């Protein structure tokens, strides 16, 4: 039997107004399972249910229906809290504490005595916080706040990390550094579920991507499978008055998904419409385009 690090089974949740009882569905019968060492990405438009899913997986929110287990333990059990780490989208830390003190405070909730110092040291090294270890949380830059959120989430030998937008809003260098560190964590068997608005980070990191829309997983698969779809880009001398069927107008000309047809056939269609093709190229569809397709289809 496969030992999953995180399992969500038919999880539904609705946010209801206190008096009327009316509400909107944040998640509808969602199921997923994460293997140890796997990095999975959650993408989707705002309001798709990414944060709600992570909060349920972290045990912070009780779902209306469904079950969640962390390493086989129900997530609401106290023992599960030792196994699952959560970094929220906008992490806030006690402002008077330095990075080292904040981690010491969280570490004290896991272990007592001398082991705490080792835990803090490891977390600082792991998140690359050594240069700012003596800086107060209130004075940290955004990238360092996210590193601190990652560090506290990994404290105490957590087996599952739930990261909400931890890679979003970072400069490319900081993002690459964090991606490398997350890769190291996955290599030692920690399962990572990462929600991201900025999907370019996921293209480098996640082995599997789930696209959420309206509280449901509408597309899921390995990154290679999702990015298998190809797109033909056509550069034209002049913008067309009307694009051929299946094409859409871009800044430089046209583009169309190559779903089941050859580039030659698509280019022949352009010529049949008397369009002056200057150049063309075939590229893979980006994750961002997949998310946008899902968003457009849902509207």
């Amino acid at each position: 039997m496969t030992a999953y690090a995180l399992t969500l089974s038919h999880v539904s949740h609705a946010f209801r107004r206190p008096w009327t009882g009316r509400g909107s569905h944040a998640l509808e019968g969602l199921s997923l399972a994460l293997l140890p060492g796997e990095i999975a990405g959650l993408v989707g438009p705002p309001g798709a249910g990414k944060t709600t899913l992570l909060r349920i997986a972290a045990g912070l929110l009780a779902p209306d229906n469904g079950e969640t287990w962390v390493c086989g333990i129900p997530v609401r059990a106290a023992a599960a809290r030792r196994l699952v780490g959560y970094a929220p989208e906008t992490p806030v830390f006690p402002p008077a504490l330095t990075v080292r003190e904040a981690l010491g405070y969280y570490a004290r909730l896991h272990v007592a005595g001398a082991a705490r110092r080792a835990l803090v040291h490891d977390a600082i090294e792991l998140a690359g916080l050594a240069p700012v270890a003596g800086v107060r949380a209130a004075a940290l830059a955004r990238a360092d706040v996210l590193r601190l959120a990652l560090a506290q989430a990994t404290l105490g030998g957590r087996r599952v990390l739930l990261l909400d937008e931890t890679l979003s809003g970072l400069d490319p260098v900081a993002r690459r550094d964090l991606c490398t560190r997350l890769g190291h964590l996955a290599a030692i068997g920690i399962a990572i579920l990462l929600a991201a608005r900025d999907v370019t980070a996921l293209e480098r990191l996640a082995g599997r991507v789930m696209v959420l829309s309206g509280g449901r997983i509408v597309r899921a698969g390995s990154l290679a499978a999702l990015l298998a779809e190809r797109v033909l880009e056509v550069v034209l001398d002049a913008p067309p008055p009307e694009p051929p069927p299946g094409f859409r107008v871009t800044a430089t000309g046209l583009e169309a998904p190559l779903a089941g047809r050859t580039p030659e056939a698509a280019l022949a269609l352009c010529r049949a419409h008397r369009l002056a093709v200057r150049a063309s190229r075939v590229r893979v569809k980006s994750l961002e385009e997949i998310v946008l397709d899902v968003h457009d289809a849902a509207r």
Partner: protein
Amino acid sequence: MRRRRFGTNRGPFLFYTAPVHFLDCVLAEWALVRPRLLRTRFGAWLGLLGAALVWLGSRGTDPLAIALHAGALGAVIGAAFSAGTDADRAALAITLTHPTTPLAVACGRWLAAVTAASGLTIACLLALGWDTGAALAGIAAAAAVAGCALAAVLAIGNGAAILLFGCMTLAGLAPPEEWVGLTRPGVLRLAAASALELGPALWRYRDIATGDMGALLHAAAWAALGVLLASGVAMRRAK
């Protein structure tokens, strides 16, 4: 029969680990009082309050009243700086993803507020002339008011601390009969009288100095109720 050696993988006794872990979590919260005292305005406010009270005491104010005010007002300031700032309230969300409980968080922060207020009470009495009864009454007032203030600041923010500070300063020492006589009979008067009668009030805790067990129990009940309410609020805030 084989003896089990220490360090084997047998799980420790539940009845031993659960309370010890709870105490560890309480101490983790309590230990934050030092950086808050030294690095925020917490220490400055306490110092200012202490200086004002000692000055009042040197001008002839009753040392028992000084002790009660030091305890109660110090506890309000302690609760405000332990849990009342927006950042501290928001930070609870991360704290509760770790293996702690809202009750441990509330206990630790209550203890931090009481420690600071008790320190202030003792310092004031040392400066004015030691009185054990007054010190006990001040510490009991600190415990009761810290519970009430902690629940209020966690739920509403530091606006509640300002309100409570004002109430304790102005209406703290006079019994309800003196205050309700100022308004006409009605719902407002009934509500004010009930609040003064039931809430943590310094006029009641005066009697602790003379060994009144009822007043001591009232303070203990408010401390416990406040911590329980605060833990409930903390749990709701983490959701």
